[in-house]
């Protein structure tokens, strides 16, 4: 059972990662650097509980703020650029960050432990071990899954509300055409930076949760591959509405696990599924048109709401 609880937590962490991509995706900015903010959040969060003695909630929040700060560092100078420059900058930053994390060493010696395993905190290429907060506070994997999914629920509700506000319409206008957005008085760069920073915050939270789940992280956990997977959750799940990242991340985390019995064929099956989705549903599995149809179906089935009339 504990295995499936861990999968549940990992799924929640991946959903968060998908939303971190989606935040700037809404304004048409494709980031392949979310793993950097994820990694920063993981290291900051883990450092706070392991070395600083902070509680999990503060550590996760701090991870989020560290992710947001790192995303501002990349976003402020590059989001003024047009086209692919931003995407390339995120890739470069993620790779640089991986190397930095891989070489970080700080902390203090442990009082106990075997020879060669006596360091608390990140120890260069050996990684950051003994992130034992869950064990120390006897939080079970099941309880942790609940914590993770509560945070996911907050983020999902936040996106649900934002999607109905002017903010989402404006981000979509920016996605469509920045010149038009400016012509209706939208400070485009500010919106793009803010959306990207929100994405960085969510990635940081996700990273802090990941570090405490795995208890061991190293620079090599935070490779570009993870960013591209996170982008795939959004693109394949559907980037037109907030349901796409949610469904995409869930399916593409749970499916590979349930397919374990068919062994290496699951990779092929996975690839085939991606190709099929892109062929037949270029807007992703969940498109805006689909969400609209469901919305109409739900309101008419419930019958509670009479047809809208002009006041």
């Amino acid at each position, binding site marked *: 059972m504990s295995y499936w609880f861990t999968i549940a937590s990992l799924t929640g962490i991946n959903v968060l990662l998908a939303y971190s991509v989606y935040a700037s995706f809404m304004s048409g900015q494709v980031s392949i650097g979310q793993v950097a903010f994820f990694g920063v959040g993981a290291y900051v969060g883990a450092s706070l509980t392991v070395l600083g003695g902070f509680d999990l909630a503060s550590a996760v929040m701090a991870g989020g703020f560290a992710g947001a700060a790192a995303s501002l560092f990349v976003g402020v100078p590059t989001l003024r650029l047009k086209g692919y420059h931003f995407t390339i900058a995120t890739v470069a930053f993620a790779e640089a960050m991986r190397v930095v994390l891989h070489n970080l060493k700080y902390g203090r010696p442990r009082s106990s432990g075997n020879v060669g395993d006596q360091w608390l905190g990140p120890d260069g290429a050996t990684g950051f071990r003994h992130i034992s907060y869950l064990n120390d506070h006897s939080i079970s994997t099941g309880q942790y899954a609940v914590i993770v999914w509560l945070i996911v629920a907050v983020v999902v509700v936040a996106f649900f*509300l934002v999607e*109905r506000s*002017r903010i989402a319409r*404006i981000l979509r206008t920016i996605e469509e055409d920045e010149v*038009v957005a400016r*012509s*209706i008085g939208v400070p485009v760069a500010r919106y793009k930076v803010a959306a990207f920073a929100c994405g960085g915050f969510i990635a940081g939270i996700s990273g802090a949760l990941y570090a405490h789940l795995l208890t061991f992280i190293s620079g090599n956990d935070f490779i570009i591959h993870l960013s591209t997977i996170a982008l795939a959750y959004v693109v394949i799940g559907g980037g*037109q509405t907030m349901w796409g990242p949610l469904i995409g991340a869930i399916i593409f985390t749970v499916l590979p696990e349930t397919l374990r019995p068919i062994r290496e064929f699951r990779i092929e099956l996975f690839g085939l599924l991606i190709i099929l989705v892109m062929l037949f549903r270029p807007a992703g599995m969940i498109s805006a048109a689909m969400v609209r149809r469901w919305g109409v179906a739900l309101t008419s089935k419930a019958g509670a709401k009479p047809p809208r009339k002009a006041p």
Partner: protein
Amino acid sequence: MLEVSGLSKSFGGLLAVDNVDLGVGKGALFGILGPNGSGKTTLFNMLTGFLEPSAGQIRFEGRDLVGKSPESIVRAGVARTFQVVRFHKESTVRETVWAAQSLHLGFGGMFRTMKSPSQRDLAAEVDRILEKTWLEPHADRLARELPFGLVRQLEIARALATRPKILLMDEPASGMNPSETRQLMDDIRRLRADGLTIILIEHDIEMVLGLCDRIAVLNFGRKIAEGSADEVKNNSDVIAAYLGTKKKRAHA
């Protein structure tokens, strides 16, 4: 209301706009006429902050607009429409107009939904604008499903939602058939009657002559004439640059 003096823009060695002076009074319907490539759109882009002038001054209600960003110029009350209409494909007509009200809102107001009771006035304003632009019956359709004739109305509606004092229209009749153009001319007259100052860029001579009370004619970036429709029509430079070539073509 809008004063332009000595405005120039050069791209490398090319002088796209050369020392242009314009004065547009409050309530005017001002036309800028010129053949393709005469610098009309460059002039528009400078007036709306999308291009920085190489030289010259732009003053709107006494405030200097040179060097201001497009978004702050819109906030000052100068809105524009584009020749090519672009909007988010998955938004409805109403949402498209609604989004253009953002500049009237503070940070908190941005988070409200369309049905928020605290923003009933803004929602009513959207309704009024949709009615004025013939979009009311299509309000809840997706913008991309609009019939072509109404697409430009959406562009105008979006600009109106920013509450402009002066509206700059870049070739609003492009791609329209004669009856659509006539309808558009009526609409523009009505907007003006509501108190909006309008600057119209067109290469459709008939439309500008029939609509505008003051017209400036550009050719190769220079203003070659300015005056009423009759004055412009009878100006020899204008005939040579513009009408003359057309007459010759009609003859052949």
